[in-house]
């Protein structure tokens, strides 16, 4: 019953540690303007706007979409603000898509962002609260013990994480928007970088970035003829589970497995590794590539690391993952999920430039957040579903 929804325009900002040249509004605007241009549209064409970002403490502006209404041409229009922790970029795109799928709007702009340089990411993510335990240092402090548990269970070689990081950082050299672009990054540089949250090294962790990503989503009849044909949304899915409970599987969470199963089913995919041509997945710490390969059903449990090791996830592998350089190379948290969704769409539109996977027709965008408890995914294709 749902209508088709197309990804008709994509825009990203330059990602960097500090975008000192723009205000918060200017940052979003850069991505939004590019998405509109890509879609062959202008501000009056847009019927509704959906904004996403992670905690408001990053910028110290409560519900900043209120202030951003002017910058996003929203006067007299509907505007929504989504926040589902780290998965928010993905969830925001899904909410925007459902406005088109439901037949409510023809052309929707969705933008997600984070301007982390206004404060400090470690502070904003783990603000000290009285009367609560306070021994978790930012996202790395939270996820490092889970990485260790995965290493222990899978028996993966210790350098798996280094290999993931090297692949992603090399891919980032092919992505003009990427934050970390160091041509001299080598296995040894990563291996010898300091342990921040042992077992996670500095160069195996995501940076803290300023950036925004925007998409123009439209109905079939509102697609305009532009340089690139649109990507078609084949399926979307979201799953959540509570933060912490007895018997919870933290390393290979059920919410992620359920979400993948659901999105594959809706997209008619029975063998993901064969049928999906590439994936942009949320890997903020290198070891999450093998962990999510298992969670997403690309590899049997305990064998995700083999995909990295065998080069399957490389740009020229049989299941390329994070050809853009991924979250490991650019991480404006609120936008990171939408960047994954956007990069997946860029691949099936053939607009990924130097990091294009030849002949990509079906791609997966993936985001997760909270304590590995919020998942959002979409599958996009070059052909209509």
């Amino acid at each position, binding site marked *: 019953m749902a209508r088709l929804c197309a990804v008709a325009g994509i825009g990203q900002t330059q990602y960097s540690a500090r975008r000192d040249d723009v*205000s918060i*509004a200017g940052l979003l605007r850069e991505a939004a303007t590019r998405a509109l241009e890509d879609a062959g549209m202008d501000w009056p064409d847009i019927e509704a706007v959906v904004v996403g970002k992670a905690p408001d403490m990053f910028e110290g502006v409560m519900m900043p979409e209120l202030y951003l209404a002017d910058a996003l041409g929203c*006067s007299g229009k509907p505007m929504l603000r989504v926040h589902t922790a780290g998965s928010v970029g993905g969830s925001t795109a899904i909410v925007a898509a459902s406005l088109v799928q439901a037949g409510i709007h023809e052309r929707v702009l969705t933008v997600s962002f984070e301007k982390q340089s206004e*404060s400090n990411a*470690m502070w904003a993510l783990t603000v000290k609260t009285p009367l609560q335990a306070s021994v978790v240092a930012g996202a790395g402090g939270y996820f490092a013990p889970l990485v260790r548990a995965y290493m222990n269970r899978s028996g993966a070689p210790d350098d798996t994480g280094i290999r993931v990081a090297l692949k992603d950082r090399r891919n980032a050299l092919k992505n003009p928007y990427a934050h970390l672009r160091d041509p001299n990054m080598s296995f040894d540089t990563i291996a010898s970088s300091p342990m921040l949250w042992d077992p996670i090294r500095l160069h195996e962790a995501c940076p803290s970035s300023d950036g925004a990503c925007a998409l123009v989503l439209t109905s079939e009849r509102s697609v305009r003829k532009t340089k690139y044909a649109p990507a078609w949304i084949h399926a979307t899915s979201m799953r959540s589970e509570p933060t912490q409970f007895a018997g919870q599987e933290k390393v290979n969470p059920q919410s992620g497995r359920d979400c993948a199963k659901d999105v594959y089913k809706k997209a008619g995919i029975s063998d993901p590794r064969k049928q999906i041509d590439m994936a942009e997945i949320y890997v903020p710490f290198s070891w999450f590539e093998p962990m999510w390969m298992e969670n997403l059903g690309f590899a049997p449990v305990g064998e995700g690391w083999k995909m990295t090791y065998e080069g399957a996830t490389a740009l020229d592998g049989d299941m390329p993952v994070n050809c853009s350089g991924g979250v490991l190379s650019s991480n404006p948290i609120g936008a990171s999920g939408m960047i994954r969704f956007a990069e997946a769409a860029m691949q099936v539109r053939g607009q990924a430039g130097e990091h294009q996977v030849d002949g990509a027709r079906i791609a997966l965008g993936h985001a997760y957040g909270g304590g590995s408890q919020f998942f959002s995914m979409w599958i996009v294709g070059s052909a209509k579903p």
Partner: protein
Amino acid sequence: MSEIVSEEGGILTAPHVLEYPYRRSVGPVLGRFFTELRAGRIVGLRTQQGRVLAPPQEYDPETGAATGSDFVEIGPGGVVTTWSWVVRPRAKQPLDRPFAWALVKLDGADTAMLHAVDAGDLSRMRTGMRVRPRWRAERVGHIHDIECFEPEPQATADNGLGGERQRAGELAMAEEAQKPVTNIKTPMRLEYRYSAGIATSRFLHGIAQGKILGQRCPSCSKVYVPPRGSCPRCAVATEEEVELSDKGTITTYAIVRVPSESIDVPLPFASVHVLLDGADLPMFSVVQECPLDQIRMGMRVQAVWVPREQLGPTLQSIRYFKPIDEPDVPAEKLQETV
């Protein structure tokens, strides 16, 4: 600890401060506005439709178009279009005595800006009155460069404060004024009284007596610690209290070597998940009295408490966990409790 108060029903509350010295890059449009403020001038921005927006907006609220760079000097005087009277000013507000908030349409502008008006008394305020800015002597390129607005002398009796400062404001700030303003500081400090809620308060009262109290789910019988008053798995409230051992097993860990503003433990330290004996999910803590390279999954540990007389309703009553001389728990037994 003295700041923790036990309120009605034994519920604990404590002060919580959300504070950060945000530093904002302002972009070219606002940058120009702040640069001019520093020089003691106010500029608006003329849109393509010919409206003068003041203060300048980066994007035209009516059309969504970028507003460009057609800056025009406006004011400094203007007219109050509406106002409210603050009886008891808050500490962060521009004036420490009763004052007005007003929307001021500056001469030459088509929109109004919000600022404070120092009128002395409510009776001196009215819509349509003329006001002028009172400049701060030391200006940095910030909205605070205008200390406030004040009634123009012809409209009301001059209180004598305005003229001097205005003249001071007209003195160009020599070299500093050459560099455009690109950043502003907007510190934030919000003070809260945080309440721990029922379950956490009970747990902390137990800690104050040297006891670790968990809660058992009436539906799945799993034991939670620290208890949160519910079993998220079953979505039911938990009430039955269970006293737990202060011994447990490390299910996984990380060695933290990076500083964080939220943590007081000296670096590096072992951040661990400890499954207390009798509990069904681990709690987060730290391990000490153990070389970092000897920490391992399955290792048996025990809480080290502060001296009895220092016990209080806070997690700091458990200083850390230390290794104990018991055989490790095999890894396969810990699969479900990372």
